[in-house]
């Protein structure tokens, strides 16, 4: 498969232990794929190990948060005019085997964004009870709002095309954790969203980019974001 027109973005914060291994694994599976690690102000050797493994690295001078790190990657891809974009986490949660499927799907299926869903996969994923409840709740909420079945709005394992890229480099994109709100926003802007099964593992590194946030604050913020989507003017259609 042609991978020249695609970029894989991996936001990483203090992932020096995991990052090299992941990149080498990806390089084995998709040798021609450009990989950009966005080092989100890490205090360890994330940048060094990522470069040694053969990835390009953009280093942020301060820790901006998962969403802002991703967005830095989107901005890079926009400037470098990549047609397709893949993204995955650096903590070993996402199984690199599925990158190929995601890329193929975004190129062939009629969708602007493909979200890798851990809940569509046969391999079961077991998060903590509170996380599981939150995930189910927001999946149901998203499904009922956009009237399309979404099983895993939290997933950061995604593929998208250039049109979404233009949309995601905009100011609305959250600095912390893009989630159900972004999916609803995409739907409102007229983008086509699809899900496909992927395998995810529980984070190997406890201090991963996804953990540590306070669930109550998170739920409250997500409600507020979703409410605001409907109070604001409808965004432009399809990234034009």
């Amino acid at each position, binding site marked *: 498969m042609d991978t020249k027109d695609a970029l894989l973005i991996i936001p990483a914060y203090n992932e020096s232990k995991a990052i090299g291994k992941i990149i080498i694994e990806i390089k084995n599976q998709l040798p021609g794929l450009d990989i950009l690690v*966005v080092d989100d102000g890490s205090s360890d050797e994330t940048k060094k190990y990522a470069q040694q493994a053969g990835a390009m690295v*953009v*280093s*942020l001078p*301060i820790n901006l948060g998962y969403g*802002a790190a991703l967005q*830095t990657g989107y901005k*890079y891809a926009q400037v470098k005019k990549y047609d397709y974009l893949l993204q995955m986490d650096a903590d070993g949660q996402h199984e690199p085997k599925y990158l190929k499927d995601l890329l193929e799907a975004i190129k062939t299926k009629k969708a602007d964004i493909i979200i890798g869903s851990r809940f569509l996969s046969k391999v079961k994923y077991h998060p903590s009870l509170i996380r599981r409840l939150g995930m189910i709740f927001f999946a149901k909420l998203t499904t009922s709002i956009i009237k399309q079945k979404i099983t895993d709005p939290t997933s950061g394992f995604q593929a998208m095309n250039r049109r979404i890229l233009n949309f995601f480099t905009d100011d609305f994109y959250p600095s912390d954790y893009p989630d159900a709100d972004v999916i609803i926003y995409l739907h409102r802007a007229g983008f086509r969203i699809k899900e496909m099964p992927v395998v995810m593992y529980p984070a190997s590194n406890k201090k991963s980019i996804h953990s540590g946030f306070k669930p109550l604050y998170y739920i409250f913020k997500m409600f507020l974001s979703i409410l605001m989507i409907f109070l604001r003017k409808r965004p432009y259609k399809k990234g034009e």
Partner: protein
Amino acid sequence: MTLHQEIFALVASVSLLLIILGLVRKRKIKEEYSWLWILISITILTLILWYDSLLFITCLIGAETPLTTLFLFGFLFLILVNIHYSVKISKFTDQVKKISQKIGLLTKEVEDFKRNKEKDK
């Protein structure tokens, strides 16, 4: 309001005004962040010096005493100042994010440029 209360309120608002003006003069506060404070002190000063206006507002909002009105106004202004700060902080957060992203991207460009130059040598 008793004479005591009046003198105290007067001293407090004049001191606030002088402190703020002093800080602006020494460039410790920028003009754009001082206007709300100056507005607060001038409003309180006006209410004390022009006592009838204070009585009128007290009657209008249904407060018990003129002193309550003064406190209420002070409190409302403090809330306003805080909202003003929240707006500014949000704007700064956004600006810091954009600057940091730009620095990250530019640093990569510079590194790539240097590497290519070394290769050419």
